[in-house]
């Protein structure tokens, strides 16, 4: 994390459509050159937030500042933002080069400069050889690149991607994630991605904002988001986990003992005794056998899913609770279905979340 000055500042933006609150006092600060993802399920407000930044949706209240300028009431064509739409929205009546040149042309840039910029943008996305093609003659992946080149060509203050990769097939999407991240870092772009794909969020971004019901639940680096989820929603939305419900027995500065149907467990969290909570841990923290000073639970293996470098083992712990462990062959034999096993995991990697926040 660098201490660079804020580049894009969203201050307490709210937006309602009829009775539904789509954005609920959102605050977001993004530094120059930062790649941030708005991650959340459909209807969480992430696209509306992106559109508010682009000027395509007017917030009911709050402010948007970009590059030191208050743009809350500036129309989109004067904001200097670049948007890559999910459907790409490439102009079908123009060629590839015509699309990339569009933004510069309407700005009245000199022809020679436009040609140079178009060439540069197209070579950046490795499509220089297709400059004269019609849009309809391109594949989905190529269209995606043209949309990117078109947005980059005007050198916007911020690039906004609205589910821009979701129309690509999986393999192409994964390749584009890596390539796009490198490209954006090369040109030192500030970018915001909107996606519901957690892998995309973790791969592409310096920071991820997990959104739910018009609010940002957590804004953190991918690693921190995964290892220290701030809410049950964030825990559920990113990665897998074991979740067991219970009641707090005793609390002791930042640690709680929880009575659950699979036994007594300890977890990190601040709760009063008697609070209903969900105790959770990431599957790779669970190990076969006992460990000292650790949580543990036993059960019968329900399923074993081999996934290459890891194997996911789901254990029926009885009373409707289940454990999810990610085991590696290196740490010993993988149990089989119906085996009775005991799993244990460190208390410092166990979190308690309030029960009612379950999404």
């Amino acid at each position, binding site marked *: 994390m660098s201490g660079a000055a804020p580049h894009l500042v969203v201050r307490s933006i709210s937006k309602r459509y009829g009775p539904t609150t789509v954005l609920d006092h959102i605050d977001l600060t993004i530094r120059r050159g930062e790649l941030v993802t708005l991650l959340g399920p459909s209807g969480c407000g992430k696209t509306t937030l992106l559109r508010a930044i682009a000027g395509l949706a007017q917030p009911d209240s709050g402010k948007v500042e970009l590059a030191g300028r208050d743009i809350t009431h500036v129309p989109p*064509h004067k904001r200097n933002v670049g*948007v890559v739409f999910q459907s790409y929205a490439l102009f079908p009546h123009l060629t590839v080069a015509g699309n990339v040149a569009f933004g510069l042309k*309407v700005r009245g840039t000199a022809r020679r400069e436009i040609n140079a910029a178009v060439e540069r943008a197209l070579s950046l996305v490795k499509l220089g050889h297709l400059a004269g093609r019609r849009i309809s003659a391109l594949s989905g992946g190529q269209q995606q690149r043209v949309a990117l080149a078109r947005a980059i060509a005007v050198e916007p203050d911020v690039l*906004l991607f609205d589910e821009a990769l979701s129309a690509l097939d999986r393999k192409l999407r994964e390749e584009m994630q890596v390539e796009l991240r490198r490209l954006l870092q090369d040109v030192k772009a500030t970018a915001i991605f909107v996606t519901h794909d957690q892998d995309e969020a973790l791969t592409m971004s310096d920071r991820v904002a997990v959104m739910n019901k018009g609010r940002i639940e957590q804004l953190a680096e991918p690693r921190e988001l995964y290892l220290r989820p701030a809410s049950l929603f964030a825990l559920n939305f990113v990665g897998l986990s074991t979740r067991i419900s219970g009641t707090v027995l005793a609390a002791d500065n930042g640690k709680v003992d929880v009575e659950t149907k699979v036994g007594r467990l300890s977890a990190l969290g601040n709760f009063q005794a008697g609070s209903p909570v969900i105790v959770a841990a990431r599957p790779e923290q669970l190990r076969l056998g006992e460990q000292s000073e650790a949580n543990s639970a036993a059960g019968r293996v329900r399923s074993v899913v081999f996934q290459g470098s890891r194997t996911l083992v789901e254990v029926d712990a009885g009373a409707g609770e289940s454990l999810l462990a990610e085991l590696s062959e290196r740490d010993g034999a993988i149990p089989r279905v119906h085996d009775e096993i005991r799993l244990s995991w460190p208390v410092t990697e166990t979190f308690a979340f309030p029960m009612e926040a379950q999404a």
Partner: protein
Amino acid sequence: MTEAALPAPVAAPAVDRERLTAIGFVLPSFVIIAGVFALPLVLLLGVSVIDANGLTFANYRRLLGTPYYLGVIWNSLRLGLLTTIIAFLISYPAAFALARAHGALRSVLLATLFLPLAASVIVKAFAWTILLRSDGIVNETLIALGIIEDPIRMIFTETALIVGAVNIFLPFMILPIYAIVAQLDPRYAEAASTLGASPIVTFFHVILPLTLPGIIAGVALVFSLSVSAYVVPTLLIGEKYPTLATTIAKAYLLAREPGFGAAAGVVLLGIAIAVVALSARLSREPK
């Protein structure tokens, strides 16, 4: 690829059957078009250039060499052009309004477009004569309101002709444009605006080019309908505005000059074909 080494599947009979089926489907329309369109067309052409003494171009010389008949051709073109231009200016925003409207409003608007198509042109043109004549509703109302003292002459003026023609042919302009506008992705305009295009620039560089196919279709339809209109000029302006269509009718019904009527018909057809061909060319994607 192991399939490549295998002998090609025996598909020839299937293809033949497909072709036969296709011919079977096309045949009825082919017979109808050949019989009731192509054949009469050939006859029309023949009648226009052959008289009792053999081959002659006298009919065309008369049509294209007499100032009066050049005026007639101009009248037809003028009716077609004015109607088309005015209908376009009304239809383009109307198509957008229609596309933006939702639910009941959209249904009502579409019904007001489609319902008049059910009434014959004669009925509609006649309705305009009732509205516009000296003791018609428009004049009576204006007099009753004290705005004018004596009735204004409206019927049998060019204004009446154009107003009537625009009204009658308007759906043929709105509907093709509406069909295009309704499926225009709003993202195009949004993309243009985020790229720095003002609403006006967006309109001329994105919206207008993308809706061009609808405009061309509407223009071709309305022009070919209005340039050849017969009932509308006959009822709304009459003798003093002879058009190719009324000239054809006169040549056949009154003057008994089928050769001359046929020549006028060929010229009218030529104009309509030129417009349709031009619009087909324009609507083809450039490059």
